């Protein structure tokens, strides 16, 4: 067979679909990020070159949202990775009913993020919400999850953790099932304690999996919108205004489409850089296998 088969025909359907629903909107966003696009002149705003971008870099609200997003991602992913890992160890060490516990632990991630937003909105309400009421009636102390800026941010991280720790757990647990048992057993027989064995034996074997989960959780937690919007609306002040919320405000409250588009490009570049970094690290690991 002399003719070289490139196989493009297999990829065409996906590329066509994605081009329509992704490439075009993307190109559009890119274009208007260079113009002064507002509600009364969407397509033909003044050409501004980089003014929108510079405006964002000079805007303290942009840096605030970047800080909030980074803090949120760091806290949420940190809690989830550690929590999920320990949960996986726990369930893995149960002699019986492993499967049952596994199913029970992954239920939280099947619930819609919006539903979690609604549940926690109800639970956090300072007058009749379950959490303040519980602490008031049982311990006599006032807990107000949404009062101070940092408390509010942390409360939102809690919502995220409740949902996604299950995901981290699932992946780590499945990985643990597939790991060979000999190294760990050998280490324990040799007299090294349980935790030492985990640190020196199990963790290194899980490195590729850890990297993958880390990438996915970072990507996904940058995108968070639904819960925060429903519960705090970005407040108090701007304490929970992440980059995606700030984009929403620019787009649909200020109707400053140009600036919003510029911000989305910046977000894309930021997240791409972070994950590219981790992606390369991952491939390096995998290729060693």
């Amino acid at each position, binding site marked *: 067979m002399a003719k070289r088969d490139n196989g493009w025909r297999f990829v065409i359907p*996906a590329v066509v679909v994605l081009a329509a629903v992704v490439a075009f909107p993307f190109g559009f966003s890119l274009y208007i990020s260079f113009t002064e696009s507002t509600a009364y002149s969407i397509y033909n705003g003044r050409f501004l070159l980089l003014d929108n971008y510079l405006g964002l870099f000079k805007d303290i609200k942009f840096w605030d949202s970047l800080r909030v997003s980074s803090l949120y991602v760091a806290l949420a992913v940190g809690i989830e990775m550690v929590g999920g890992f320990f949960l996986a160890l726990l369930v893995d060490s149960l002699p019986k009913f492993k499967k049952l516990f596994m199913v029970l632990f992954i239920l939280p991630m099947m619930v819609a993020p919006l539903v979690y937003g609604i549940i926690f909105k109800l639970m956090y309400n300072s007058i009749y919400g379950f959490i303040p009421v519980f602490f008031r009636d049982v311990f006599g102390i006032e807990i107000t999850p949404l009062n101070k800026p940092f408390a509010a941010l942390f409360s939102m991280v809690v919502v995220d953790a409740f949902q996604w720790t299950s995901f981290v757990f699932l992946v780590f647990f499945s990985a643990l099932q597939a790991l060979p048992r000999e190294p760990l057993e050998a280490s324990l027989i040799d007299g090294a304690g349980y935790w030492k064995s985990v640190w020196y034996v199990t963790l290194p074997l899980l490195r590729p999996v850890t990297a993958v989960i880390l990438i996915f959780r970072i990507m996904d937690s940058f995108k968070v919108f639904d819960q925060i919007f429903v519960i705090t609306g970005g407040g108090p002040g701007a304490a929970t205004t992440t980059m995606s919320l700030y984009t929403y405000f620019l787009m649909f409250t200020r109707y400053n489409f140009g600036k919003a588009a510029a911000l989305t490009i910046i977000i894309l570049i930021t997240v791409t850089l972070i994950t590219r970094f981790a992606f390369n690290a991952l491939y390096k690991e995998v290729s060693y296998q």
Partner: protein
Amino acid sequence: MKRKRHVILYTIAVLIVLLANFPIIFIVFTSFKPLVDIMQPSLNLSFTPTLDNYKALFSESFDFGKYIVNSIVIATLSTVIGVSVSIPAVYGISRFGEMKKGVAFWILSIRMVPPIVFALPLFLILRLVGLIDSSLGLILVYLTTTVPLSVWVLNTFLSEIPKSLEESAMLDGASRSRILLRIILPLIKPGIVAVFILNFIFSWNEFFFALLMTQDKAVTFTVGMARFVTGYSIYWGSIAAAATISMVPMLIMTILVQKYLVRGLTFGAVK
């Protein structure tokens, strides 16, 4: 001694299960509480359960049937189309080396951006072709997530299948498409099931775009839930009831197919 350790482990496990699922338990309980009791600043552990909140879902102001049907249709079709388009795409990517890294990364990078990036342009486009407030419109929007996800997950499944299998088939004269259908497809079935479930869950639970792109005819269940924050009151009871109902299919599916989920979500990164 070992017995004691096990008891401790199980106790901890049970406690954590209760804690982790507390929000879910809470909302189910709340769905049976009368609204007056929900909004009290005291722990109402004893209350007279009522089905009023559920009844409100079937009242004339909440089109329960329509919302559920829309959700099912949109979730199913966006998943089916997304997966169908992704399977050949993944085959192309993994078997035809030159484009591997480039196309794969381009597809994955789409998943990295917050959905809001596409909000306005997609809205304007859908409006242009008259697909606002239509199931088809929302399905197309969801493809931006289902396709990249499917490609990414299926790719790792495909990479586990040795090329020798196909090579012998090709020597026998089978065409590439034939190989895909007859040989590859059955082998990656667990992956397809996992991806199908993941995408279905995503489409079912999605809120932001559904809110933006629908107004009346194509309203899904999640948006319908938001309607209970009405101009009269936050009908917490009915929201809780709607939330409970929306969780049921997901939970059932999880229990039925947890086997495939384990395989699917570990992306074959575990060898």
